[in-house]
């Protein structure tokens, strides 16, 4: 009982340890209810987990994840925009957390529904980066060489957007939001479809995956050796001089 009640309190007593800092940053307080995440995002991450670790949490030796941390980011709640021409569109806004020094972004992908089934209607969809129009801006389209979607299932597709995120967004300071546009097309226009489309939520149609590698662990392991070696090499004059000064 004591452990359950005070584990977070105990952690706050040693806030300088890296693990404790991370746990305090990432662990929501006990008073927060576990956010409800259901459907495809949760299924996707559970599948990724079972591919990468066994039942006891031991990382699998043959894991192909290529990263030590993967964050699934859901879009901010947003409703579908009114019909424009043959296209049904939704703007998807993904809030990105500030960069963590110890983690390097290695890959960014967007997973989206390429087939959307509304009652009696089937839509073909794709996602493309959305940036404000200006003469200098180039809009990469989904047919471009850098953005090739790959089919995951009958309804979901994954598309690599690493280059776009790194070039346009990653090193920006302040609040960063990745804007994507989710576009669907249907052959016959229908007023019923328009009503259904306007009821769809952005939370159900796409999510972002950010893959990171932990550079902190490697640095920490390398430190004692390099520091010791450095001090040994410099033990003659520079250190002595500094002490005298």
């Amino acid at each position, binding site marked *: 009982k004591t452990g359950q009640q005070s584990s977070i309190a105990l952690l706050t007593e040693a806030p300088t340890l890296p693990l404790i800092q991370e746990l305090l940053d990432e662990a929501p307080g006990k008073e927060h209810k576990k956010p409800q995440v259901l459907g495809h995002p949760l299924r996707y991450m559970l599948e990724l987990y079972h591919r990468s*670790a066994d039942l006891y949490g031991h990382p699998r030796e043959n894991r192909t994840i290529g990263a030590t941390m993967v964050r699934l980011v859901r879009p901010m709640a947003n409703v579908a925009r009114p019909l424009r021409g043959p296209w049904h569109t939704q703007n998807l806004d993904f809030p990105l957390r500030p960069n963590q020094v110890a983690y390097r972004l290695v890959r960014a992908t967007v997973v989206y529904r390429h087939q959307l089934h509304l009652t009696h209607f089937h839509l073909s969809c794709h996602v493309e980066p959305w940036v404000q129009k200006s003469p200098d801006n180039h809009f990469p389209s989904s047919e471009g060489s850098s953005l090739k979607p790959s089919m995951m299932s009958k309804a979901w597709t994954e598309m690599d957007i690493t280059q776009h995120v790194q070039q346009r967004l990653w090193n920006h300071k302040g609040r960063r939001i990745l804007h994507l546009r989710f576009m669907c097309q249907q052959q016959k226009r229908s007023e019923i479809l328009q009503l259904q489309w306007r009821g769809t939520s952005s939370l159900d149609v796409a999510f972002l995956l950010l893959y990171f590698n932990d550079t902190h662990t490697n640095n920490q392991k390398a430190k004692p050796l390099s520091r010791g070696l450095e001090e040994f090499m410099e033990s003659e004059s520079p250190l002595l001089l500094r002490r005298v000064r």
Partner: protein
Amino acid sequence: QAGSIGSEVPGPSWKHDGPENNQCSLYPFQVSFHQLGWDHWIIAPHRYTPNYCKGTCPRVLRYGLNSPNHAIIQNLVNELVDQSVPQPSCVPYKYVPISILLIEANGNILYKEYEDMIAQSCTCR
């Protein structure tokens, strides 16, 4: 590199009583994230096996224990010079990471590998 003592988790017949001579060894130990009070945000795994090291360190630290030179000297000091200097302690030697899947407060989902979370073998130092 010789393997450290207790590098393999002992079998069921051995695990309740520990090694006969209470020598420094690795003990399997499992805890649920519910017991730690973290089950409201950790989705997987359900159980965590940190294990632990327990037992006395021998007077003569043999090679297989992977003890550093300092531990050998401290043992000598305890035996020959000053008994107020303690003998080396039985502590984890090697660790392995654990992968965790958790839900962040904003509803995002995080897969993360945490280093040095499971004790795999023990040493005297």
